[in-house]
């Protein structure tokens, strides 16, 4: 029987090689940071604030200190030496201090360190703060929130997309819709907790912490401690899920480093699940006001989108997804605006597909409502407005296969059987609905450096500080090296996740494969050139005198088209070397050479997406069947089909898993996930895995992934469009649209819970 997990490659797709780290992961040998043995560690447990705004007036530590085994307690009174690193300059938040000012619920106010985890936990429960408390502003609509225009406060979003005169377009359009949508806060909740282990050797610090950016963390921690970054090493061989939550430095790391320094002993922190909701970031709640105008034939003439996003009091975190949504169709005129709403909360941060998840949910819901109003099939409506040029500046797409995705997904799904009338399809006691939406994610490429060593026996070692977060980084990086060096994947050893290796960008923006594989490809090409040169310039070798252009690497040999070849071993012998090693720095077009020095210093610039002469996006079409029970209103998703095109796919197996998991994330966004806030106290209510709803196995039925061939020579040398954050985009809209099709009820606020379907 065919293995659905390992799709047969089509054109421009790599083999479904099993993950090179699979055996380690199924035997418990993959070493996540908190698994790393360190000598005689002390254990840290955090104490966090129960209020959101105010001040610590007194901190009674007597009870905690009396617990046997307690070694040290860090508070605001003894951590003054930690330097501040501002939000946006390497830190996830400006709320870094342990007090005495409290700016968010769940702010770290003490770190209790003891000989055992049990003693530290006991003692932490005996830390008694006395607060003077103020009334916090929790979220949209709370008294005391303040609002700012994102273009005024966010350096990354000084200009938002505008085209033509949208007001005039709406005034002249025969069909106009004017609607509002809302999305809830969500927390990443990777299965691995937020851990930090710090060990000092003389004045050198090693940090074992799950990270999506070891160079960023290394430089950030050094800055907080006021030491030379060269004295800090960050190791994150595996991250147990990340989804954005481990991309930027959070306040805990420097605290644990300081605790280890004070004790002169390694200190290990494994924060609790509940603490993870407040000591790191999350996806903030958003609101959207959308208008679309169209002619009777379905041609769009105008699109306006105003977004509202919650952030913390001090920091203007904003995703401004209109930058991407505004590129998606031939809208005609475009008007966009984004507002940051400051509340007394922890600072939000990147969560899987940050800009597009909320904004494309809103747009793709509106697209369905417009299709409905026009009396058009929703796929046909998108086809009418498909375009090879962005409406913003009429710039071409580097490649775009959206309608091919729709066609292949529709055929597999059986979309033609859809009765367009809402509420018309029924199976016994179940109302059946079909819905669709577009998935889209900007293609990002960043600078990266790699070192590759080839041995005469055809074994290679690749070193690059990329990050394995479930994305298959070890595997696809190895595949690129194997392909360029003409050796088996099994002959390649890949070392990543260590700031001692050449740098790679943050594993964010789905750039890892594109950036890392481009750097590895460049480095391998240097090695190829050296081998070719040695082979053709030899006096008497089998390839002597030939053109290097006619050579390739195959099965551990340099070979020519006619079959002549010379083994690596023979070439190495002539070169007089035991290994051939090279190092190369890859800087994508559009970035300055300084980008590599910046990367070493923990700063990343990327190109792609909506910026540049060509716009670069991976795309997909998701079609979903929803069933709503006529009596209980229980909502099920028996099947979902997604077809995706993303340039070169390095490995159809890892790609399949990312896209499948992404669609399930989308189902989760639609039906399950929301962090509930107590508006009186600005505290999260469901800060555990029993009450924060994510899908379990029984929630998921048929998930079909279709890989669509696409070639794009413009995006980067690897030809890769990242897709780790593609498939969870649009899904919530597809399900919203299917729920409407099943029931006639339009839900405009996520998640869709059954109580929202009790009307009529």
């Amino acid at each position: 029987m065919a293995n659905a997990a390992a799709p047969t490659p089509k054109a421009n797709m790599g083999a479904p090689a099993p993950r090179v780290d699979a055996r380690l992961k199924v035997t418990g040998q993959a070493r996540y940071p908190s698994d790393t043995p360190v000598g005689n560690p002390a254990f840290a447990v955090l104490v966090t604030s129960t209020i959101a705004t105010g001040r610590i007036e007194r901190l009674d530590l007597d009870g905690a200190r009396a617990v046997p085994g307690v070694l040290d307690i860090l508070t605001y009174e003894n951590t003054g030496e930690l330097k501040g690193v501002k939000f946006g300059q390497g830190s996830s938040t400006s709320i870094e201090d342990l007090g005495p000012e409290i700016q968010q619920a769940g702010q770290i106010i003490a770190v209790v360190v003891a000989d055992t985890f049990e003693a530290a936990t006991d003692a932490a429960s005996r830390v008694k703060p006395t607060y003077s408390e103020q009334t916090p502003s929790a979220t949209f609509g709370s008294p005391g929130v303040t609002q700012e225009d994102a273009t005024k406060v966010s350096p990354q979003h000084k200009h938002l997309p505008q085209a033509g005169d949208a007001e005039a377009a709406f005034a002249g359009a025969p069909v106009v819709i004017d609607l509002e949508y809302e999305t809830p806060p969500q927390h990443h909740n990777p299965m691995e907790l937020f851990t930090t282990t710090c060990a000092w050797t003389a004045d050198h610090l090693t940090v074992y912490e799950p990270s999506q950016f070891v160079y960023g963390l290394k430089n950030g921690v050094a800055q907080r401690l006021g030491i030379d970054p060269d004295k800090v090493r960050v190791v994150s061989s595996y991250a147990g899920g990340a989804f954005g939550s481990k991309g930027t430095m959070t306040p805990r790391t420097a605290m644990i480093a300081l605790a280890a320094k004070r004790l002169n002993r390694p200190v290990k922190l494994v924060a609790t699940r509940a603490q993870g909701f407040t000591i790191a970031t999350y996806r903030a709640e958003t609101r959207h006001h959308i208008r679309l105008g169209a002619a009777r034939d379905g041609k769009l003439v105008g699109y306006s989108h105003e977004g509202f996003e919650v952030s913390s009091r001090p920091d203007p975190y904003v995703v401004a997804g209109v930058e991407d949504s505004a590129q998606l169709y031939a809208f005609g005129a475009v008007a966009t605006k984004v507002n940051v709403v400051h509340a007394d909360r922890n600072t939000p941060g990147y969560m899987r597909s940050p800009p597009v998840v909320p904004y494309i949910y809103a747009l793709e819901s509106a697209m369905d409502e417009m299709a409905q109003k026009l009396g058009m099939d929703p796929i046909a409506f998108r086809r009418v407005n498909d375009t090879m040029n962005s409406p913003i500046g009429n710039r071409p797409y580097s490649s775009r296969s959206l309608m091919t995705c729709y066609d292949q997904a529709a055929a597999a799904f059986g979309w033609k059987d859809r009765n367009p009338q809402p509420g018309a399809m029924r199976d016994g006691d179940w109302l059946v609905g079909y819905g669709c939406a577009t998935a889209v994610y900007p293609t990002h490429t960043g600078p990266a450096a790699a070192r590759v060593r080839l041995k005469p026996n055809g074994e290679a070692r690749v070193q690059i500080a990329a990050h394995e977060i479930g994305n298959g980084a070890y595997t696809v990086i190895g595949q690129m090296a194997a392909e360029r060096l003409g050796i088996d994947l099994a002959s390649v050893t890949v070392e990543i996740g260590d700031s001692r290796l050449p740098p790679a960008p943050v594993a964010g923006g789905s750039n890892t494969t594109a950036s890392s594989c481009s750097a590895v490809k460049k480095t391998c090409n240097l090695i190829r050139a050296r081998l070719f040169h040695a082979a053709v310039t030899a006096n008497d070798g089998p390839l002597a005198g030939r053109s290097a252009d006619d050579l390739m690497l195959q099965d551990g040999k340099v070979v020519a088209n006619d079959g002549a070849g010379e083994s690596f071993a023979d070439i190495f012998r002539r070169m007089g070397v035991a290994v051939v090693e090279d190092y190369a720095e890859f800087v994508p077009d559009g970035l300055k050479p300084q980008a590599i020095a910046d990367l070493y210093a923990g700063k990343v610039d990327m190109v792609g997406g909506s910026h540049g002469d060509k716009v670069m996006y991976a795309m997909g079409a998701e079609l979903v069947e929803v069933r709503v029970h006529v009596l209980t209103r229980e909502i099920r998703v028996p099947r979902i089909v997604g077809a995706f095109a993303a340039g070169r796919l390095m490995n159809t197996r890892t790609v399949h898993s990312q896209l499948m998991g992404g669609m399930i994330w989308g189902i989760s966004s639609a039906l399950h996930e929301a962090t509930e806030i107590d508006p009186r106290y600005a505290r999260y209510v469901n800060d555990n895995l029993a009450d924060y709803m994510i899908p379990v196995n029984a929630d998921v039925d048929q998930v079909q992934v279709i890989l669509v061939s696409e070639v794009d020579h413009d995006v980067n040398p690897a030809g890769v469009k990242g897709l780790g954050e593609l498939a969870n985009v649009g899904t919530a809209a597809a399900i919203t649209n299917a729920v409407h099709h099943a029931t006639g009820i339009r839900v405009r606020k996520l998640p869709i819970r059954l109580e929202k379907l009790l009307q009529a």
Partner: protein
Amino acid sequence: MASVSTATVVPAFARASRATPAAANSGDARAPSDFTLTVNGRDHRLAVDSRTSLLDLLREHLALTGTKKGCDHGQCGACTVLLDGRRVVSCLTLAVAAQGRAVTTIEGLAKNGELHPMQQAFIDHDAFQCGYCTPGQIMSAIACVNEGHAETDADIREYMSGNLCRCAAYPNIVAAVRQARPAMKTASRD
């Protein structure tokens, strides 16, 4: 290869012996308990804080870090191990309560370098991405088959729902359990 259920069967009297904990030498819960724990067929003499969970004991005292902490509240299943062949969440099991019983962890599955059929099936079907929930999923899946709760896909989904996977490899996990089921039955007949 012998299946885990047969490998970890212990005589009934071993359970009874738990009634006389060696830990009862002090009224203070913080006082170390002296006891012996059998993990993956090896006996370990231990003296640890009585409040130590089986999970923390495995990870912090025995260096068996394959078992993962995902919530410490019995909500996620990442810490699943087998206790006398039955799946338990080790975060809600006190280490002292496991004495006299056979503990099997992910490190105890492969025999002489040969993977357990469930481990191989997880590789074949790419039943994970980040891999953090995977040890718990595999331990749970083995028990699921041995319980007879893996006869249909619907059963597998239901009885594997105590193990969360945030990467959402669920369909691949179902396919892996489906593949391993007959292989485990064959192995247990050998």
